[in-house]
């Protein structure tokens, strides 16, 4: 299997107090565990079960995902720019896989 490729779309700069949009996407089949293979055997569940966004080390947004989130899970959410710092994005997969991205935000 190809390693899931995460992507985010975040502004590089923001004014203090400004609300900005974050788009986060990861290429992932989100295998529900409800399907069967050609031999009639159940395909085990393998989904991204949690998404976390940290802003300067503090969790500011997170999602618990279940089977009904579409494949290639996509989220758009909004944050308020308080200070310059790192935005860290973490996707956790069933079985312990973790995928990360980091982004620097300059707040002027």
């Amino acid at each position, binding site marked *: 299997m190809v390693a899931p490729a995460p992507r985010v779309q975040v502004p590089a700069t923001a004014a203090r107090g400004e609300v900005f949009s974050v788009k986060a996407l990861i290429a992932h089949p989100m295998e529900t565990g409800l399907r069967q293979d050609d031999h009639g055997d159940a395909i085990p569940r393998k989904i991204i079960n949690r998404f976390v966004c940290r802003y300067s080390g503090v969790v500011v947004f997170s999602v*618990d995902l*279940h*089977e*009904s989130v*579409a*494949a290639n899970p996509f989220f758009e959410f909004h944050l308020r720019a*308080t200070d310059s710092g790192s935005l860290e994005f973490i996707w956790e997969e069933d079985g312990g896989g973790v995928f990360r991205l980091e982004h620097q935000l300059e707040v002027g």
Partner: protein
Amino acid sequence: MGRESGVIGLSRRRVLAVAAGCASLTLAAPSVASASADEDAVELIEDLTGKTPTPSDRVRLVMPAVFSNGYTVPLSFEVDSPMTQTDHAKYVRVLAPRNPIIEVATFHFTPERGQARASTRIRLAEPQFVLALAEMNDGALLLAKTWVDVATNGCK
């Protein structure tokens, strides 16, 4: 001639009466369906959480009324909240009661730095009311629902 017109008059009246009856039925039907759907939704949340939610306009759940592809149905929601330390939404839990697994996702928010709104894409197995349940910092549970008609089963 006079008799004929009398017959016509009667049938016209009948037609009008039947038409009026149909109109009131069609007007009444959606509100009745919506009321029982509200009760079903409230009951489901009571079973899941042990608490009684309040259907509320403060939670807006936006989805297409009709969508062909059940594999990837767009969903957006917003909670009307200032998102201050003393007044904010803690989380929004999205449920699809007619999916094989009804839990869809729970979004957790932070006051001051966050906003109680998000968008994603979900799977739907069949036409149904999708629910968004927001818990506020004072413990209030606010509920919104929206009907989505999907043509294909997105859970197979």
